[in-house]
Each structure stands twice: as C-alpha cells, then as structure tokens.
C-alpha cells in the first residue's frame, strides 16, 4: 500500500467510526429518554455512507432515508448540529423541528433524511436534473433501502432518469430487511433486472468493505459526471439493529454474525502496517468528539414554540 492510500483508508475508517460511535451514543441517549421519538440506526452499514460520500464534493447532493444518520454525518453534518437536532434543541441543524428522520444540511448538499420510504428518490432526481440544467458536472445520489424497491416512485424515477437523462447515482443499501420482513418475502424481482429494464447500468458492491465501496463509487461518479446518465448500485450490507430502536425483533431469523465493516477495516489497516496505537488514538479522538457534541447538545436551549409556529411558510424575498 502506498502512503496516500493508507491515509485515505484511515480517513474512511475515521468516518465509519464517527458514525458508529455517534449511533451507539444515540441508542443510549434514546434508551435514557434524552432523544425522543423514533430513531433508526444504520449500525453495520457505515461502509456504504463513508465509501460513497468519499466520492462526492459539497456541490454534489444527496437525498437520504429514515435510516440516514450515516449519510448525514458522512456528507458533512457537524456532530454538534446532529446531536442538538436529535435531542430537540433550538440550535440543532433543523432547529429541533425535524429530528432524526429529517436531519439535513443544505450547505453541504444534504437534502434531508426522509420519514417516507422512497420519499427522497424523486427529490434526488429533481436535484440531478437541476445540476444538468445548470450545466454543472455535479451528481445527485438517491439513497434508498431494499424495502423501497417495492415503492412505485422508484420505478417512476428510474424511468424518468433514464429518459431525460439525469446524473443520478441510485444507491440501494440492501440490508436484507424491509422494516419487519425479510426483503426476499417482499420483492419478486432483482434490482439488477429492474435497472436493465430501464436501460440503466448496474453494479453490485460488497457494502461492508469501505475501500471497495469508495473505489467503485469514485469510478461510477466519474462516469456519471462525464455521461450525465444514471447508474444503479446495490450495496449489499446487513442491518444489525432493529427497524427502529426498541424493536424487539422477534421476527428475526438471521442470527449469523454479519461482517462488521468497522472491525474488517481496522484489521485491514493493521495488516497494512498501521500501528495499533495509532488506531487507538483515532478511536479516543472520535469518542471525545462525540462526547463533546453530546455535552454541547445537552447544554443547548430548547426551541420556542412561537418561533416554530412562525416557520411554517417561507417569507418572500424583498
């Protein structure tokens, strides 16, 4: 491994670790009642977020899902803005009005997590069309889970993206679960065949190997920038937690150990000659960053109802 390649790999590791530690903290804060509502954790799927986002710039846009913490953090949401939002604070990224399912940061091209399965797909299509109409080479990424393959809007959006064409990276995070049912019980087709129906190129990636995800995503993004045409990518991974935190998962039969992308990457880095001490240092730094963000959120003010009520409509530009 060349030094720059190892440095890049360490960056990916750090990004995945940030998501993992942030989400583990979310789980604790949720159990303690400090995060209200519903949260859906992407533990075990971090390589997809870190890998794909490593191929993007701030000019590129993404529309995410209800399981969107990893997408948001990897796209550039600050940890403090993230925790403040999930803890319902006035200075959260969305002023405490959206919460976990609606984290967004338009300044980094993160057009929102989404509480509706498949809800972000057509939004990403519109964003991709906007990039095209502006004549930029930016790309939009439509994240969706394998459960969303059953939503009609995916089919409509693939058709339109192919016809226009629009520079959209359709990123399916195939974690094996459609809420409380195995996806195999809900989907009668393959994403590969679906993409072929719309004449869109298809790739299947091992979604647990961040270096592979990153390398292939970079190639694909370059192709989309040059061609202006959509590509469908299936990132095969595994949902480790329940559909939502607190889900007792009595329906679950997949008890075999999933490949943990974080341990996998840590082991690969060690094999590349990175000293264990250096990795431990990164672990401590990231843990400190997460704890600092949580502490700052806990001290942050609660939002005012009057301000929320005044925020339903945008004011006209003078």
């Amino acid at each position, binding site marked *: 491994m060349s030094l720059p390649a190892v440095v890049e790999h360490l960056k990916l590791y750090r990004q995945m670790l940030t998501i993992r530690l942030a989400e583990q903290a979310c789980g604790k804060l949720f159990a303690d009642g400090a995060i209200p509502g519903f949260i859906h954790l992407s533990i075990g799927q971090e390589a997809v977020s870190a890998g794909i986002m490593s191929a993007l710039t701030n000019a590129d846009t993404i529309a995410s899902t209800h399981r969107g913490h990893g997408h948001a953090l990897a796209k550039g949401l600050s940890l403090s803005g993230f925790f403040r939002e999930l803890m319902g604070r006035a200075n*959260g990224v969305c002023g405490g009005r959206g919460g976990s399912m609606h984290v967004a940061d338009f300044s980094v091209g993160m057009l929102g997590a989404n509480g509706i399965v498949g809800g972000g797909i*057509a939004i990403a299509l519109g*964003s991709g069309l*906007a990039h095209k109409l502006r004549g930029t080479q930016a790309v939009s990424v439509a994240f969706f889970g394998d459960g969303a393959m059953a939503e009609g809007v995916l089919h409509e959006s693939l058709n*339109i993206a192919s016809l226009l064409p629009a520079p959209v990276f359709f990123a399916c995070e195939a974690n094996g679960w459609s809420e409380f049912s195995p996806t195999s019980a809900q989907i009668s087709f393959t994403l590969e065949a679906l993409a072929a129906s719309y004449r869109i190129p298809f790739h299947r990636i091992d979604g647990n190997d961040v270096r592979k995800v990153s390398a292939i995503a970079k190639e694909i993004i370059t192709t989309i920038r040059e061609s202006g045409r959509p590509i469908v990518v299936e990132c095969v991974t595994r949902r480790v937690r329940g559909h939502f935190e607190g889900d007792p998962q009595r329906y679950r039969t997949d008890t075999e150990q999933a490949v943990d992308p974080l341990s996998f990457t840590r082991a690969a880095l060690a094999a590349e000659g990175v000293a264990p001490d250096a990795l431990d240092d990164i672990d401590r730094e990231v843990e400190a960053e997460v704890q600092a963000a949580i502490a700052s959120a806990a001290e942050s003010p609660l939002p005012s109802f009057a301000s929320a009520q005044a925020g339903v409509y*945008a004011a006209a530009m003078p």
Partner: protein
Amino acid sequence: MTEMRYAHAINRALDDAMAADRTVLLLGEDIGKAGGSFAVTRGLQEKYGADRVIDTPISENALGGMAVGLALSGFRPVIEIMFMDFMALTMDALVNQAAKAHFMFGGQSSVPLVVRTQHGGGLNAGPQHSQCLEAWFAHIPGLKLVCPSSLEDAYGLLRQAIDDPNPVIFVEHKAMYPIKGDLPEHRAKLEIGTARLVRPGTDVTIVSYGGMMREAIKAVDLLAAENVSAELIDLRSIQPWDEASVLASLARTHHLVVAHEAVEAFGVGAEIVARMADIGFDELDGPIIRVGAPFMPVPFSRELEASYIPAAAQIVDAARRALK
C-alpha cells in the same frame, strides 16, 4: 384591454414568468409538444425550449417529487397535473415533502413550487375527472391554494404564485378555459390571500370562488329582482383566505351564504362558516348557510351532473333561508 380566453390568460402568465426569470421551468404530461390537454401551455416549448418546458411520462408521484428536488435546488418549477383527481397520485410529494421542507429543515430551504391543475364538472367527465379537492390541500400547513375566477385574477395570481417561495396549488376550472374576458394591458401580479368585492350589497353576503362565481353572479341578479341586495365576495385564495374581508362584509349585511362546487360536507365552506360563527357571532342575524355539491361522487350523465353541480337557484334559496 385585450380580449382573450381564460386559458390564454394562464398561458400569458406562464410566458411572462418564463421571460422574466430563467429559473422558471414547466414540467408535466404532454405540456410541451402537445401543448397541454387543454392547450394552456401551447407554444411555450417552441419559445423556451425542451429544457425549460419538459414533457414527462405519466408519473405524477415522481413528477411531484422531482419538482420538490428542483425547487430545493434553486429552480421555480411549475408542474401541471392534468386533472385535480390525479393529485391523489402526488400526495406524498406535496403533503409530506413540499409542504414540510421549509419547516422541518428549520428554514434552511424553501420550496418555490407551483402545481397547476384544474377541477370541476360541466364536461361530463365523470367521477375521476371532475372532483373539486381543494379542501384536502387547504388542510395542510405549508401549502397555499388559489382558485381564480377571472382572467385578470388568473394572470395575477399565477404570476404571484410563481414568485412565492412556498408551494402553491393553482386551481383552474376546466369549464372556464374557453370563456372570453379582458386582460388589462398592464398586467399586474396579485397578492395571494386577498378577496375581491365583486358586487356591493346590504342584505346578505355571498362568498364564493372559482367556477361557482358564475352561478353566484346569477344568484345576485335573481335576488335583486326580489328586492334583496346581495353583496358578492370572490375569495380567489383559499389558503390563506381573506378572513378580514369576509368579516367586514358580514358586519355590513349580518347574513352569510358560502357557495362552492366542491362537496359541501367538510369543505372549504365549513371552515369559513366556523370562523364566522366564532369571530363574527355578534354580527350574525341569522343562520349561515352553505351551498355545495351533495355527498356523492360526481356522476357522469348530462342529467345527473346537471343536478349534482350547485346552481344559482340553490344560492338564491340559501340567501332566502339566511334572511328568514
């Protein structure tokens, strides 16, 4: 003044908006090459190109979502949903995405999106091509909805809707497209949320909007023949609606009738009546009467549809009851 048809006034508003602002885009089914199923967008693709007047497949759900994505990215998309009944297929994009993005993202973004659609009966289009569903959208915080009855209002409200940073549903009436009227040479934008006093009167206030305005005008004339002086208000905007103008009129006449083509039950009229029964209670000298379609799907046959759509005689009867 230029005489033209209602459909042409809408076309003129789109044309002027596109000329004024390069971020204005039109998207919809058969709006480009075909010029729209009611010819409202005719000629615009030739003038502005296929990049700004975009024909889409018959995919209302993705069309709505795509428009949200464009609006979040700095464009001002105006989408056409061919019949208001088909808005059922856009509901997630409009209700869960467009209406809430500004609010739930903490004001980071706005959604300057216009949905043009048309409602109403009169063409025997049957149960799935005739419904007036404006109450659905008026019920959703974050959306605006306007329903103009005149060429001048259609022009002014559409220009304003396109300028508005929020999602606006612009509801046309299919039976009105061929109607001729005058559009002033100086074509002005019209503030959303302002009603128009169409006829001053002293005995009873009639509030209406959209296609039902034609029947309401007839009703005012019929009432005049009975020596009843009716004041007629065209609401023009449904969300927000001009509560102050309605209340001011009620304070003059002390009697109120609300008439619309949509089903009466749980409709726009119910909201107006409820508000006036609250804030206008001291002004009322009689019951507030609603006129709307019966609680049934819009029937197809000429005879059935004619009986279904509220007519001037029902508004007259309602005014008599209000005054009794």
